[in-house]
């Protein structure tokens, strides 16, 4: 099966459980299982290639210019992890089906689980480190959802947040490290990076990259000092803990260290950092685990400890260490998942996970007892179980590792850690299952149904099988190790066997097991000692740290972002002026190269009007209606200016937009106060004037500067002028640019316009459904209403000119390709025609005659424009390639047919819809407010007001 499909299956499959939720829990779990099984089988079809040492790849270029490609590869290491993720995933799904109660939303759970599974498979199969980072962040997010699945538990929410904070920050650090690595290697493809060991390790940025990447790995894999999030994540449902913390999430960091092993390991920095962190984590985790009373907390800290063990092995940088690490990952995944599931069973049946309240379960839950005991003994390192083999290899490796110049240090600490590890395993068995049966369990424990014990039982079969016959796992582990090592080292020849002779590792093992038993014997005094020893509480420190960061950023933000819009406006204006001035003063200016054109009287008159209107606005802005009239003058003068300076299309657009904007502002002013009171101090007005004058002078200077100089290079407009007719079939170059050369921009713009209109509609709906509605209904108009709301003259006039205006719009639309006009302008003209009807005849009359909702018109416009663009795909051209031809139907002259006209139709419809939806929304507010609405367009109709003929329709 294609690698793409293996990664994509869980993601697409994630949609199904949510959809199947109402089909029942069985169907929900069934579909999830099927999806995972399909991906699992797909993975297995690649097994022969992997065993033969081939590299299976799949590649799609995504953003080649950024070096970001969707490339996947499958080698031994990737296969191994994918096998764990999908294989244990299947068992977890089966287990979760029985574990989750009826109150839990199963669809939601399985959706999160599949998302997580897909992200994990993505990480281990990525060949591009940028892609890997995307999947990496996805695991952080989806694990957040999984850990916080029980939203009603504060521990769940806190644990999820802590996990996201820690792993998310590590992920950010790792992005930095990966980017540095990619820069050094000159490629973001892992297969290329892995070939460049010498180049990368010689680079001065090697150490920063290493530190950043290790930060990512250590946070994800809960290495000291980032180990604290993992135990808190145990608030998740047990299937999540079993999945995330045995086989997947926390192994992602380990995976990455193994993946990067060929290029990053072998240096003193790597050795010291990774080995030390691993060693500390292993010992610390084991000690804390022994004194935890919650079964899951015990297992959580034991996971921390085992992750430390694996990290330490990878840190040694030897081939044997890497092989031991891979083997232990396999063994740990099997026994730890089984243990988590057993803990879940105990919790499920006895209703408590507190070891102090348990004991004697061996008689009540024999099946669970056997499963948990075998898994725990394996974890303790008892022979004939798989944990013994890899622990032996670890101890063997430890005797050859010299840290800080002390040859005894690593072996001693490794033995010490193993001793505690054995002790907590024995405690888990002894205090939970052995001892007398009690009569004070919160619930009567008994073995669960096969659905719950079968998944861990399958894992325990593996534990025993590998433990008794290690040669079964040996070839596979060696294939995996070979792909970890790459070209850097040979796979060690060592055989996996139970009896190695009387080697030091065996003595260390014996010390650990015997010591563990002794430790359990003196557990009670040790516990008292532990409880009286003061020790830092990671959660308190973490929360204090977060609170301090929040307080710091609040101080910073509230200084700048104090809710005063005018302050932001002033800061922004000043910043732009200063930055512009800086750029200006440090740049070079050529001499003026254009001759100034003479001032004509007409232009001067227009300039004076613009000046008067703007200055008038500044001084008279407290009278709002007056300033609205003045801005109309300014807009009109801008339109005239466009005509004057050879931009007829712009002038038509500006003047039509001006009309609808003024109508819109008038509608708004209907509700707003008519006067702006004087509130600002004279000082403040002086300051604002200074800023405004500085801004005005700066823009004037800049505009003046470029108006008297030619462009320093030939503008691309030459291309548009030369190709407009030849390539686009139109003589109006502006319109051809809009619908053809830059059609994709225009397409985006009509979508934005449509979104703006829908936003206005949504805001209106929100207002009308909230408390504002009552206020609007009770509102008294602040000015006397006109006695004649729908003047007959106006009604008649607008209806008569409606067809004419529509015809003008139609004409402007059609000629747009060759003469000034086009979809934008035609749309605005037609909108004005319709708005006139609303204004003259009233809202109800007009909307009663409205056949198509404006949302639909917007949608149709965007759809037509989009389909026109897609049409070019059918003739194997890129999106929005246009074509045109000339047609002659005998009685008429030859005329042109262009696909661009169809696109322009889309623009036209979108503009009409957007403008009308906005204005209509505003007038709906007005309608609810105070207008005694009537369906009749004309107010003066004697027959209507005549009681005997027709009942009064007032207020309808």
């Amino acid at each position, binding site marked *: 099966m294609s690698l793409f499909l293996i990664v994509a299956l869980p993601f697409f499959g994630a949609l199904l459980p949510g959809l199947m939720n109402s089909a029942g829990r069985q169907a929900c779990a069934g579909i999830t299982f099927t999806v995972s099984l399909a991906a699992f089988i797909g993975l297995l079809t690649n097994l022969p290639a992997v065993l033969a040492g081939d590299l299976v790849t799949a590649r799609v270029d995504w953003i080649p210019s950024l070096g970001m490609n969707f490339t996947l590869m499958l080698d031994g290491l990737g296969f191994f992890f994918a096998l764990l993720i999908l294989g244990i995933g299947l068992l977890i799904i089966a287990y979760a089906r029985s574990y989750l109660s009826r109150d839990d939303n199963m669809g939601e759970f399985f959706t999160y689980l599949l998302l997580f599974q897909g992200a994990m498979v993505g990480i281990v199969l990525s060949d591009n480190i940028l892609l890997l980072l995307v999947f990496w962040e996805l695991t952080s997010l989806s694990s957040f959802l999984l850990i916080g699945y029980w939203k009603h538990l504060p521990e769940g929410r806190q644990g999820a947040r802590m996990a996201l904070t820690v792993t998310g920050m590590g992920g950010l650090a790792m992005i930095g490290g990966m980017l540095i690595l990619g820069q050094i290697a000159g490629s973001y493809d892992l297969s290329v990076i892995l070939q460049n060991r010498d180049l990368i390790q010689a680079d001065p940025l090697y150490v920063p990259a290493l530190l950043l990447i290790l930060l990512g790995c250590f946070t994800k894999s809960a290495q000291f000092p980032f180990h604290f999030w993992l135990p808190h994540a145990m608030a998740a449902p047990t299937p999540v803990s079993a999945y995330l913390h045995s086989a997947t999430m926390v192994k992602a960091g380990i995976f990455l260290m193994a993946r990067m092993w060929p290029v990053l390991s072998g240096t003193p920095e790597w050795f010291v950092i990774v080995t030390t962190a691993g060693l500390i984590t292993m010992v610390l985790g084991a000690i804390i685990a022994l004194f935890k009373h919650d079964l899951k907390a015990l297992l959580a800290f034991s996971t921390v400890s085992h992750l430390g063990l694996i990290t330490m092995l990878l840190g040694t940088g030897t081939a044997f260490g890497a092989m031991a690490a891979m083997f232990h990952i396999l063994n740990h995944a099997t026994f730890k998942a089984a243990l988590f599931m057993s803990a879940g069973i105990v919790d499920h049946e006895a209703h408590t996970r507190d070891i102090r309240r348990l004991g004697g379960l061996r008689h009540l839950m024999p099946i669970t007892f056997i499963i948990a005991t075998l898994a725990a003994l394996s974890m303790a390192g008892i022979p004939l179980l798989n944990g013994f083999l890899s622990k032996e290899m670890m101890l063997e490796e430890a005797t050859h590792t010299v840290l800080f110049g002390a040859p005894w240090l690593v072996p001693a600490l490794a033995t010490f850690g193993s001793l505690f590890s054995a002790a907590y395993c024995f405690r888990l068995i002894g205090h939970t299952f052995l001892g007398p049966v009690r009569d004070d369990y919160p619930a009567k424990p008994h073995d669960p149904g096969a659905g719950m014990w079968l998944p861990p039982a399958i894992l325990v079969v593996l534990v025993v099988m590998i433990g008794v016959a290690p040669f079964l796992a040996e070839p596979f582990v060696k294939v995996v190790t070979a792909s970890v090592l790459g070209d850097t080292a040979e796979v060690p020849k060592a055989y996996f066997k139970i009896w190695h002779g009387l080697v030091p590792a065996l003595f260390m093992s014996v010390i650990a097991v015997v010591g563990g038993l002794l430790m359990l014997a003196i557990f009670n005094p040790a516990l008292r000692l532990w409880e009286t020893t003061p020790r830092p509480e990671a959660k308190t420190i973490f929360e204090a740290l977060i609170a301090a960061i929040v307080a710091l950023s609040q101080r910073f933000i509230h200084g700048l972002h104090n809710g005063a819009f005018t302050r932001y406006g*002033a800061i922004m204006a000043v910043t732009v002026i200063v930055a512009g001035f800086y750029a200006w003063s440090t740049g070079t200016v050529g001499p003026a190269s254009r001759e100034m054109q003479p001032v004509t009287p007409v232009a*001067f008159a227009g300039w004076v009007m613009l000046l008067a209107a703007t200055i008038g606005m500044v001084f008279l802005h407290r009278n709002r209606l007056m300033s609205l009239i003045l801005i109309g003058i*300014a807009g009109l003068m801008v339109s005239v200016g466009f005509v004057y300076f*050879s931009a007829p299309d712009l002038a038509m657009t500006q003047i039509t937009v001006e009309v609808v904007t003024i109508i819109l*502002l008038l509608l708004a002013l209907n509700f707003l106060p008519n006067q702006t009171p004087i509130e600002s101090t004279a000082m403040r007005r002086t300051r604002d004037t200074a800023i405004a004058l500085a801004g005005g002078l700066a823009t004037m200077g800049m*505009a*003046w500067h470029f108006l008297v100089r030619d462009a320093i290079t030939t503008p691309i407009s030459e291309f548009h002028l030369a190709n407009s007719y030849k390539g686009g079939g139109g003589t109006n170059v502006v319109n051809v640019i809009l619908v053809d050369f830059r059609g994709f921009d225009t397409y985006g713009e009509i979508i934005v316009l449509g979104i703006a*209109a829908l936003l206005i509609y949504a805001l209106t709906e929100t207002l009308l459904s909230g408390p504002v509605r009552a206020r609007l209904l009770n509102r008294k108009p602040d000015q006397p209403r006109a006695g004649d709301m729908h003047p007959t003259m106006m009604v008649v006039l607008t209806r008569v000119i409606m067809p004419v205006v529509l015809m003008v719009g139609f004409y402007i639309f059609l000629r747009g390709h060759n003469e000034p006009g086009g979809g934008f302008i035609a749309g605005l003209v037609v909108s004005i025609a319709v708005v006139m009807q609303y204004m003259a005849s009233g809202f109800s009359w007009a909307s009663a005659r409205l056949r198509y909702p404006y949302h639909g018109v917007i949608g149709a416009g965007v759809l037509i424009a989009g389909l026109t663009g897609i049409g070019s795909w059918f003739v194997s051209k890129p999106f929005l390639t246009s074509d045109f031809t000339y047609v002659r139907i005998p009685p008429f002259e030859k005329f042109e047919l262009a696909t661009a006209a169809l696109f322009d139709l889309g623009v036209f419809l979108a503009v009409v819809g957007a403008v009308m939806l906005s204005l209509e929304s505003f007038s709906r507010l007005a309608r609810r407010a105070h207008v005694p609405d009537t369906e009749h367009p004309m107010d003066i109709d004697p027959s209507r007001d005549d009681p005997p003929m027709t009942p009064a329709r007032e207020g309808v």
Partner: protein
Amino acid sequence: MELLVASAIGILTAGGIYLMLRLRTFPVILGISLLTYAVNVFLFASGRLSIGAPPILRDGIEVYADPLPQALVLTAIVISFGMTAVVVMIALGAYLGSDDDHVDDAINKPSTGTGDAT
């Protein structure tokens, strides 16, 4: 002529900035509209000024105004309508909801705590 256009841009900008710094929503909206004019004319002027040479291709005519800024400004005008409409709606909603059309928050009180909902 160039000076007239440059000064018109400057005046529109100055008026726009001044009104934008007012305390009530309505003048702020008008200020933004004035700034929009200024920016549009500024962009348009980057194609330099030409009189009587619209970019409509005709046989025998060689000199045309720069069409590219015109096309860009055309869409900018339409988009700025959309933007104005949204801002007006927000201003209106805020006023109808609170009976207050100030643009600045009245009380500047930092929110308390770390946002921890637990």
